[in-house]
């Protein structure tokens, strides 16, 4: 089977805008993996293109809707969620999926994030958390770990990082999960469960950014960073056991899995 044949028979192929390729993502970027997982989940859901709307803000993550054939809004920095809220409240029968990043969601869009969680509005939000501002060339973000290097934290970040999942839980989202770009199957399933769960579903995906994060933080190869994501991940259940036994886990531990799946009242369901 040639590559072209393989591409044609790929199930998600017809969700991508072939006329927009090649994409802008750097070699080794993990965002494509996340787009792939999300489209796979949509495929499993059986959603129709004309009923699905992608919304995004600004940044590398937010370019994703531009490569997908459905109706989509590529909006202003941090504002994807209020735009998506307008779409969903005006037409609750639409399936709304938001792609966002750590800077877009947690810095400039932080207020919109907590209020969308509070409203528990029925949409699925996939956050590509690369812990850096990729598109502008590697500045520190609210999820840049303490001590990590970026162009605006040249001596190591002095600020603590946000835990986006804990934020979403505290603010009221019905479904919250975290995976990494290494966990393709788990991520796909989490996105699907998020789509199935009425209300606000938040899936944080820790993703490698070799160009701007890896280069500055001693990840010589793309795979080094993916291997880091794999080896530092710990299932939430295991983490909770550690916590119960008062055994500390290393600071760099990435807690993965389903954090919450609940049934708070939901806004934006079909009337």
């Amino acid at each position, binding site marked *: 089977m040639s590559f072209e044949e393989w591409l044609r028979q790929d199930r998600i192929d017809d969700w991508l*805008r072939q*006329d*927009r390729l090649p994409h802008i993502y750097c070699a080794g970027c993990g965002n494509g993996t996340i787009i792939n997982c999300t489209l796979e989940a949509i495929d499993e859901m059986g959603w129709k*293109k*004309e*009923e699905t*709307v992608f*919304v995004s803000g600004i940044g590398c993550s937010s*370019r994703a*809707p*531009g490569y997908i*054939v*459905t*109706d*989509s*809004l*590529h*909006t*202003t920095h941090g*504002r994807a*969620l*209020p*735009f*998506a*809220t*307008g*779409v*969903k*409240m*005006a*037409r609750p029968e*639409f399936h709304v999926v938001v792609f966002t990043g750590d800077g877009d969601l947690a810095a400039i869009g932080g*207020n*919109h994030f907590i*209020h969308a969680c509070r409203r528990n509005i029925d949409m699925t939000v996939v956050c590509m958390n690369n812990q850096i501002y990729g598109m502008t060339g590697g500045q520190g973000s609210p999820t840049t770990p303490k001590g990590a290097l970026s162009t605006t934290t040249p001596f190591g970040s002095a600020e603590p990082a946000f835990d986006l999942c804990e934020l979403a839980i505290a603010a009221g989202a019905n479904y919250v999960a975290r995976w990494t770009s290494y966990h393709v199957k788990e991520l796909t399933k989490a996105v699907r469960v998020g789509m199935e769960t009425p209300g606000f579903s938040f899936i944080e995906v820790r993703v490698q950014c070799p160009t701007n994060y890896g280069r500055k933080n001693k990840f010589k190869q793309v795979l080094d960073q993916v291997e880091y994501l794999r080896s530092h991940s710990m299932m939430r259940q295991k983490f909770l056991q550690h916590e119960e036994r008062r055994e500390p886990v290393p600071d760099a531990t990435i807690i993965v899995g389903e954090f919450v799946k609940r049934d708070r009242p939901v806004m934006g369901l079909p*009337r």
Partner: protein
Amino acid sequence: MQGNIACAEGALAAGCRFFGGYPITPSTEIAEHMAVKLPKINGTFIQMEDEIASMASIIGASWTGARAMTATSGPGFSLMMENIGYAVMTETPCVVVNIQRGGPSTGQPTMAASGDIMQCRFGSHGDYSVIALCPSSVQEMYELTVKAFDLADRLRVPVFLMADEIIGHMRERIIIPDTVGHTARRPLKPGVLPFHPEDDLVPGFPEFGKGIGVHVTGLTHDERGYPCATNPKLHEQLVMRLYNKIEHARKEIADYDVTNPDAETVFVTYGSPARSVEQVLHDSPGEKFGHLRLKMVWPFPEHAIAEFPNATRFIIPELNLGQVAREFDRHTRVPVIPVPKLGGDLHLPKELKRLAGVGA
């Protein structure tokens, strides 16, 4: 009926079915009225977390085909500027009501001003052109809101209803028509690229959910809607089209009243100062003062100046430091006398009479 309620009723009559807003004096009655009325007619009212989000929500709703509106005042208007620019760039029809109050900053929440009239023209970054309507009565709060939706849909641009605290909170008797005819948004023709303009430079609207698969971006985009931000020629073409679609319609959509076109002394007003000038004209029938009352300030109806061929001076009372007087001055060799007023009080008829040389 109160001006703000007339605005909300006009919006409902025009088919507005989505309101996203944030409380702010002196515009809040509009949101409150929409909160009561919209759910009863299968519309959506949502109170957003701030004005940035309010503006975003109405743009999102507009792409699903809904007529959508927000209402605010100066501080909220400043926050909306970011997404107003997005609405301009993406050609999203929407209506933004600004019940103006004294600024800068928090200023005078309960007092009238027209200090945002230049902000609505130039407030977001980059070059563009918009439409601004200025009611000077409760009746016009109703009528011009209806008109705002029609213009927004026709030209695919944010339309501003630039009222002020006096008009918003004033109560007057009004006539509400049984039905309000409105022009529908022109849909995208089949087989046409989503941002390919028709003869009037406005593309058909590729509504979400119709299977068109339109990508909407605030980046410079081609007729497919795809980002293409480093092509100088494409950017110039796009921005010039967005600008010219309004500028070319300038004469045709212009809306103003002319009183005593033979007059030598001509008052020029928009918004509530029109009421003071009407009193002056009423009190001094022998003086034959002219009055050019602008119901639409942007695009500026420069040709309206020629309606007064004998004018020897234009007196322009405004609730700001002369923002429109300066624009007016650009278009005429006749002396322009700005009459700025800050603080929230209207110009007294006797002040204006003194200026015009009556009863001195």
